Each structure stands twice: as structure tokens, then as C-alpha cells.
């Protein structure tokens, strides 16, 4: 079975500082996508960043970047210059074809609090 592990249930960071959220997953596939989603208190799930497994270059989206280690099956999210609006639950979700008929499997999430 495909598994996703987010080992940090909760984290906090001071405003303007940098924080890294970890994610590891299990797959035997070679080509797949990985996603980080954000769920603010409003509860709507919002895509933060995506990474194609065949690309060696790590994806970046403004203040958000990933450290993708394919061999280690690790996909961490780095948030730079943290803002109060970054306070949310963050979910890692690999999209592997072998997992649940090719559907995304979500980790249990990391609750991030950005403190002023």
C-alpha cells in the first residue's frame, strides 16, 4: 500500500523566518507527481506547489520551494519569509498511479502556526 508520512504534527515559526515541513512516501514507481496543499482555517484546500518526479530541479513558487530527494522518497516544503497568512494545515500528497487507482494519497498533515 502507498503510504505518506508527515512526521511533524505541529510546528511554529516566527514571522519573517524560514520553516521546513517534512514528508516521506513509499512508492515503487518512477514517474509521478508530488503536491503540497495548504488548508487554512477557512478549510478550503489550496495547492501550494507541485513537483514532477522526472525533473531533477526542485520546484519553487515565490516564497515556497521543495527539496525533492527521489531516491530517499523525501519531499519537504520550505517556506521563506513566513507570513501570518501562512498559518494553516499543510498536506503532502504524492500522486502515484499504483496508489489507489492513481489517486492522490494524503499525509496526516502538519499544523503550522506563524507567530508575530
Amino acid at each position, binding site marked *: 500500500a502507498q503510504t505518506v508520512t508527515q512526521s511533524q504534527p505541529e510546528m511554529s515559526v516566527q514571522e519573517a523566518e524560514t520553516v521546513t515541513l517534512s514528508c516521506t512516501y513509499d512508492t515503487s514507481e518512477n514517474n509521478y*507527481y508530488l503536491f503540497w496543499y495548504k488548508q487554512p482555517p477557512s*478549510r*478550503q*484546500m489550496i*495547492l501550494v506547489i507541485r513537483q514532477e518526479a522526472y525533473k531533477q530541479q526542485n520546484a519553487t513558487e515565490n516564497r515556497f520551494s521543495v527539496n525533492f530527494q527521489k531516491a530517499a522518497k523525501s519531499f519537504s516544503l520550505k517556506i521563506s519569509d513566513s507570513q501570518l497568512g501562512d498559518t494553516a494545515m499543510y498536506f503532502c*500528497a504524492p500522486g502515484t498511479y499504483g496508489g*489507489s*487507482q492513481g489517486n492522490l494519497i494524503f*499525509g*496526516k498533515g502538519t499544523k503550522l502556526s506563524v507567530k508575530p
Partner: protein
Amino acid sequence: SQTIHQWPATLVQPVGSPLSLECTVEGTSNPNLYWYRQAAGRGLQLLFYSVGIGQISSEVPQNLSASRPQDRQFILSSKKLLLSDSGFYLCAWSRRRAGELFFGEGSRLTVL
């Protein structure tokens, strides 16, 4: 542009009553559609997905069912709700398998 809407946003139902949550997608055709449930403090659990009209796959045995009567409409139902059905339900769509999911606003169900 594509949009997804689900309703109602909030629902309080007694045990044993029926349920119907509806989700519609606009601006795309033949989407993959999904129902997820999120229990308090936990991740997302995939309940159902559909790759076409009338094609429903269930991920977990449960008290719920899903239907797709039209290409862009996905309905989550129950004939008799249980206390354990309480949670936050999210509808989502994607263009393809293992691809990016686009989520609706969610529906909070409380069964008393």
C-alpha cells in the same frame, strides 16, 4: 476558467436521517471527480472517485454511496446517517489520474 462548488456548506442531521451532498464542476468536460472525508485533526480519506458518468469506485466500505448522474455532477448520499459519519467532506476534480486536485469549499456534517 474552471470552478467547483459543493453544498450545503453546513449540515446538522439526526442519526438515521438521509444525506445528500452535491458537487458541480464548471468549465471543463469529463473530469475525474472525488469525494474525500476529513475527520477532526486527521488527513483526507478518499471515499469515492469517478472517471465518467455512472462509473463510481468506492475506496472504503461504509454507510455512504455516490452517484454521477451527469458529467460534471457528483452526489454523496446516505439512507441512514450514523454518528461516525460526522466530518468535513470535500469534493474535488482533476483532469487525469494522479494529477492535481481542485477542491470545493467543503461541507461540514454533524450527526447528532
